[in-house]
């Protein structure tokens, strides 16, 4: 909606050079800090975890939790960019680079999954054990899908799709910085629409493969959407933090209006996650069918029960009422607290999804949980930070940039 009343106010004048991360900015250290965290975290995990077979299984489960956490943030970023282009969004141009920098981590996340594919399959997935499959008619029935070869091909396909979309959209966006060609916006849109379909299918089946098949006797058709919802929420939480930093750097470009929209989206996907989580739970609870209840029966027994309740309260009830007021959504301090909290809750969600397949009776924390998570965060931070440094913070010559700068919320 054009702004009739402000036709006489001056346009802000910004130098293109100021739109890059300043040389002395602390975020320039993301790659080095990230690499150190990755080396320490993943290094210690590998050294300590491979020391004995007893702890090896813990290593791969903790590694998977960490990998899922950082991968989901990258996937959320890819989703944001795809939707931004598909809907020809105007308000988000100024913050789109955050999504682009996050999705730039996706090709590198594949590296995190290589050790799992090469070494961890036996410890993670029950259906890889030929003797177990031979005794189990259900696993035999699923063998056409749940076999190592097809699994590997699918995983490669998922990362290929994400890598292609992330690199292509990132390259076109960077090219537009140089040329200002409006056609590039059209090309990015034309790629994003089918890209969304590929994204939906690949994320759904990735969740089925890498998380749901940890318990191969169980299934839930909504599981892919559940994983997707949590991922996008986690990305918007991450985006809140980065956008706030960007607001300090570029106060005339990024303001409370954009923050408000980002926190609104974080809130919306929080509610969507809760909707998916509860839908999944309620239908299984109500039908009470033995082939479906195992997942929740395990998580509502023993020491898993308090964690499940904590997840319901901490991942939904408390943040929902906290983020409901408009003033909270527009407050940098409150939004930071909410974003950090939701990222922590998302990590807890990933833990709660994976760990019960290792520690069946109850929670058993391990130092590997922390080490692997820190290591994976280090990898993400390093790649994100590298991408952040290598290009302008905003799409310099996006045709919708002026619309984004003058954006005002209701």
């Amino acid at each position, binding site marked *: *909606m054009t702004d*009739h*009343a*402000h*036709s006489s106010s001056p346009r802000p004048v910004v130098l293109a050079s100021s739109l890059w991360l300043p040389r002395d900015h602390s975020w320039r250290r993301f790659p080095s800090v990230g690499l150190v965290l990755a080396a320490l975290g993943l290094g210690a995990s590998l050294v300590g975890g491979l020391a004995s077979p007893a702890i090896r299984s813990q290593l791969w489960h903790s590694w998977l939790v960490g990998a899922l956490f950082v991968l989901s943030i990258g996937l959320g970023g890819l989703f944001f960019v795809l939707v931004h282009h598909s809907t020809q969004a105007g308000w988000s141009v100024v913050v789109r680079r955050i999504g682009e920098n996050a999705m730039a981590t996706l090709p590198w996340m594949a590296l995190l999954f290589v050790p799992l594919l090469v070494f961890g399959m036996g410890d993670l997935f029950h259906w890889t054990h030929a003797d177990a499959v031979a005794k189990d008619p259900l696993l035999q029935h699923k063998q056409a899908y749940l076999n190592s070869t097809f699994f590997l091909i699918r995983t490669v396909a998922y990362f290929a799709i994400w890598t292609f979309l992330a690199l292509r959209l990132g390259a076109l966006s960077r090219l537009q910085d140089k040329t200002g060609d409006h056609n590039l916006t059209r090309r990015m849109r034309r790629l994003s629409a089918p890209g969304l379909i590929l994204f939906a299918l690949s994320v759904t089946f990735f969740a089925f493969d890498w998380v749901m098949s940890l318990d191969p006797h169980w299934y839930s058709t909504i599981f892919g959407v559940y994983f997707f919802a949590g991922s996008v929420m986690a990305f918007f939480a991450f985006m809140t933090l980065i956008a706030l930093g960007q607001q300090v750097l570029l106060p005339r470009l990024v303001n409370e209006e954009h923050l408000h929209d980002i926190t609104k989206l974080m809130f919306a996907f929080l509610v969507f996650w809760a909707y998916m989580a*509860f839908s999944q739970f*309620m239908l299984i609870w*109500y039908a*009470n069918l033995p082939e479906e209840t195992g997942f929740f029966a395990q998580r509502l027994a023993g020491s898993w029960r308090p964690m499940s309740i904590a997840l319901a309260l901490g991942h939904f009830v408390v943040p929902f009422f906290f983020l409901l007021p408009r003033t909270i959504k527009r407050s940098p301090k409150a939004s930071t607290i909410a974003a950090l909290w939701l990222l922590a809750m998302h990590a807890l969600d990933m833990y709660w999804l994976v760990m019960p397949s290792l520690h069946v009776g109850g929670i058993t924390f391990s130092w590997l949980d922390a080490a692997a998570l820190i290591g994976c965060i280090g990898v993400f931070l390093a790649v994100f930070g590298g991408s952040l440094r290598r290009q302008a913070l905003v799409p310099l010559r996006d045709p919708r940039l002026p619309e984004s700068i003058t954006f*005002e919320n209701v």
Partner: protein
Amino acid sequence: MGLLRPSLPPGKSFGALAEFADPAELYHACEAVRDAGYTKWDAHTPFPVHGLDRAMGLKPSRLPWVVLVMALGGALAGIGLQGWVSTTAYPLVISGKPFFSWPAFVPVTFELSILGGALGAVFGMFAMNQLPTLYHPLFGKTSFERASDDGFFLSIESWDPKFDPDRTVELLRQLGAKEVELVHS
């Protein structure tokens, strides 16, 4: 103002009505009227003008609170109804579930809270806009029909403490109104 006629002492006018050429002029006029200290006045435009609520000095709406209360009320009603029916009125064992089976209660509770919120929003909005108002003195002015077409109007009501028939009209003329007139009911 109510359903029928506003309660005015006979002989007194409703207020002043000013027409402006475009939204920008109306916007600046609103800022001036706000700064002049008027409280009982309104702007009439055929489409929403961005930022006009700030120009008018309007306080944030209380409607969100109405929606919140109605939504919580709806949720309470949902839980209350299902809880009472399942535990007290007709305690039946349904597929082995406990009497107060809260997971099964959530869909209805959620939907009733949405319903409460939606009804609160719609009827709250009507009430706060003093709708339905079957008659309004401004409708007597044929020029005012343009308020839903291409006219931008500002009306100051005569029971505003700062209202003065001559000075208020003069102020509106100074602010660039195409036409200012006193409206009689």
